Structure formats: structure tokens, C-alpha cells
């Protein structure tokens, strides 16, 4: 991967199980800081489990077991003294289906900051405005901040969810198939947004869309059966992958 960037994450010997089912098998990976890393692979290969390891979202799943290290800025996120809530504030996750709260647009964005104890109205106003601007949706919603977020279109809801993630000022944004429920126009807006985000954030994205991985990411990681088969610069993976398995997957010969 690109050696000019610092590592945001270092994953070492990461294994994960759901009960007896061994879903991630001894993976090592370095994720570059302020870069977009795409995780690709067929359904069930472990990429969603993998992305959720970065902000301990798997903690909620009964029977989930993990071994190995996920080191974020020098700190292993799975050490007992680490507070998972704190982790999720610094490392935000956007889901596949837009999931706005059944509240107003304003309250969706202000939700996180309020939990963090921010009560000052002017401060909240400014967080809401800047988050919606960063998520490239401000112009579309600025006159209806009090309306329900559920009235927005799918593409707008997804950008709202990204804005909601940005409102708590994370350092990393994880996106688990953020465009799979969106049409091409909305997809293109989200992709543009993702590319802009990398100026200030480390971005990791799971996608089933090979063209999307090619368009937005700097680095690509290919998973198969819970194992990282190949990782490297996206431009190399999509023109001359080193492994036959990678080539077969991205050219659609299996998977």
C-alpha cells in the first residue's frame, strides 16, 4: 500500500467466530490514514464482520468471539481498558440501508452532540449546518430542518446518515455498502462525498460494486472465505491483480 501515508489501523492476526463458525482467519492488514480503502469479496466472505471489528460493532452479537489485535493509532481497540462507546465516537459507521431516526432532520444530526453533552443552541446550530454541508446535503434541506428525516429520499437519507456520523467529529468513517439501496444519481453523489471526505478522514468502505471500488478507493482488499487474499493499490488490483483468485472474482468468473 501507499507508504507515504501513516497507518490509521494495523490489524494483526485477526480471527473472529460466530459460535463455532470461524469467519475471519488470521488476517493482517495495514489501513492507510486519510485514504479510502475498499473491502471487496463475495457475500459471506467476512468483509462486513471485518469492517465492524474497527469500531467494535460486533460486541453486540451474542456468541461473537475475536482474537488478535486491531491497533488504532498505537492502541489495541480490544484491550479491556478501552471504552467501546468512545471507540464508536471516533470511528463512525454508516450502514447499508439509510437508517435515520424518526425525528426531524435537525434532531438527527444534533443527537450525537447532545449525547456528548452539548446543550448550547448556537453551538448545535453550527454543528448541524457544518455536518450537513460536509455531507453535501445542506442546500437540499436547509429550509426544512424541522421536517421529519423519514420524508427525505433514499439518497438524501443516506447523506443525512453520513452527516449524523460526521456531527460527532470522528476520525474514521466506516461505510458498509452505503450505495446498495440507491439509484445511480444518488450513488454518484455519495461517491463524490466519499472522495471529498478523505481529505480529513480515513474511510473504509465495503462494496459489492466493482466499478464503485475502482472509482472511489485508493486501496483495495479482497476477501475470500474469511481470508485476505490480496490487498494493494486499487489501480493495480483492477488492472493486474497478482492472484488468480482476485482476477477471477473481479472479472466475474466466480462469486
Amino acid at each position, binding site marked *: 500500500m501507499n507508504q507515504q501515508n501513516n497507518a490509521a489501523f494495523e490489524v494483526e492476526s485477526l480471527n473472529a467466530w460466530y459460535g463455532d463458525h470461524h469467519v475471519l482467519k488470521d488476517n493482517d492488514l495495514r489501513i492507510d490514514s486519510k485514504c479510502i480503502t475498499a473491502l471487496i469479496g463475495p457475500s459471506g466472505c467476512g468483509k462486513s464482520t471485518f469492517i465492524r471489528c474497527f469500531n467494535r460493532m460486533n460486541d453486540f452479537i451474542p456468541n461473537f468471539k475475536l482474537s488478535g489485535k486491531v491497533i488504532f493509532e498505537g492502541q489495541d481497540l480490544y484491550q479491556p481498558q478501552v471504552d467501546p462507546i468512545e471507540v464508536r465516537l471516533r470511528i463512525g459507521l454508516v450502514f447499508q440501508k439509510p437508517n435515520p431516526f424518526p425525528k426531524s432532520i435537525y434532531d438527527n444530526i444534533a443527537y450525537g452532540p447532545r449525547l456528548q453533552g452539548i446543550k448550547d443552541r448556537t453551538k448545535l446550530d453550527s454543528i448541524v449546518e457544518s455536518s450537513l454541508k460536509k455531507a453535501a446535503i445542506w442546500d437540499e434541506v436547509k429550509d426544512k430542518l424541522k421536517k421529519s428525516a423519514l420524508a427525505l429520499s433514499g439518497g438524501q437519507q443516506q447523506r443525512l446518515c453520513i452527516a449524523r456520523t460526521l456531527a460527532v467529529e470522528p476520525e474514521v468513517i466506516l461505510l458498509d455498502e452505503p450505495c446498495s439501496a440507491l439509484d445511480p444519481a444518488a450513488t454518484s453523489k455519495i461517491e463524490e462525498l466519499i472522495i471529498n471526505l478523505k481529505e480529513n478522514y480515513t474511510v473504509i468502505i465495503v462494496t459489492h460494486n*466493482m*466499478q464503485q471500488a*475502482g472509482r472511489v478507493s485508493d486501496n483495495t482488499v479482497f476477501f475470500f472465505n474469511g481470508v485476505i487474499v490480496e490487498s494493494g493499490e486499487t489501480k493495480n488490483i*483492477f*488492472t*493486474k*491483480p497478482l492472484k488468480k483468485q*482476485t*482476477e477471477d472474482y*473481479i*472479472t*466475474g*468468473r466466480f462469486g
Partner: protein
Amino acid sequence: MGKHFQREIERLKKNTLALSTMVEESVQKAVRALTKLDSGLAAEVIDNDYKVNMKEVELEEDCLKILGLHQPVAIDLRFIIAVLKINNDLERIGDLAVNIAERAAFLSKHKKLHVPMDFSGMTREVQSMLRGSLDALVNMDAKSAYEVLLADDRVDAMNREMFIQVQNEIRKNTSEVESLIHLLSASRHLERIADHATNIAEDVIYMIEGEIIRHKAEEYQSDISPDISSDEA
């Protein structure tokens, strides 16, 4: 990408082979017309060029369609890019065969020249390069593609030798200047065909290995196996 895409790729392969066969035949005929001073054969090459041109356009349209509709990646992408470029080279080789046929047509109407140079040696070398580059494409064989690259230097040397001999001949025999210039042009056209065969070989290597090796002669010459290098020496 499923069966439909694989069918498109197979069709593209077939069409590329069809074009390369047409072009190879044109070169063969043009060279024969030149060595046998056969104006009938020369006319045949000239008349058939439109078929090569039409096939070239058809192939390019196929490539563009596949790129637009399927957005291929990795080996599929490299294959289509290689075909796009090889297509171009094949069409240019077809044009050069026509140029040679035109020289042959001129020379067949004039007094036979006596240049000591072994012209047939050069035509053999060029035809074997062309054949080698197309075989490399058909068999996805990088080794024979590398052999083509080495042969190009030999053809260049032959063309330079031809230049010197024609120059000497012109000094001795001013009455044949026009024919001699036509002969030199034919040699130059052959040398250009060898250059296009080299391009094709380089594109085949790109397709197989994913490395662009153009303008890196020293590197690939030291990379290849010793048994090929010793042939060159």
C-alpha cells in the same frame, strides 16, 4: 460478468484472428509480387485492402461496445486494450502491404535490377516476425513475443544495408535511379511492418504480464532466457 460477456470476448478473439489472417496473407502476396515482379498479384493486394479496413472498423466498434456495456477489469480489460491497439497495427500493416504491392507493380514494368542484397532474407525475417507476434497473441505466449522484439534489430540492420547498397548502385548506374528508389521504399515498408509486429508483440506482453515494456529494450533483453539471447548472438 457472465456467459454473455465471455461470448463477446470469444467473438472478439475470432475477429482479431480473422483480421490477422487477412493481413498476413496481404503481406505474403505483396512480398511475392515484389520478388517475382508479378503485377497481377500486386493488384490483388491493392484491391483487397478495403476488406482489411472494414474489418478494422468492425473490431474497434466491438471493443468500444464491450468497454461501454461491460466495463471489464484486469485480464479482460488488458485483453480489450491490447486488441484495440493490435487492431490499429494490423490495419497499418495492411496499408504497408499495399505500398509494397505498388512498388512491385512499378518494378514489374521496368528493367530487372541487379542489387547484390539478399532481399528474400529480409522478407523471410519480417514475415516470421509477423507470424511470431500473431502466434504469441493466439497462444497467449509471452516467450515468442519476446523473440519478436529481438528480431526487430536484425531487420533494422538489413534495411540499413539495403540503403547503402542502393546508394552505391545509384552512383554507378544513374539510369535506374527511379527503380532503385522504389526498391529502397519497399525495403523501408518491410522494415515498418517489422516495427508494427514489434508493437503487437509488446501489446501481447502487456496483456499477459500487465507490464508496459515499450522503450525499455535493455531491461527485457537481460530478462529473457539465455537460449533466446544466444540465438541473437
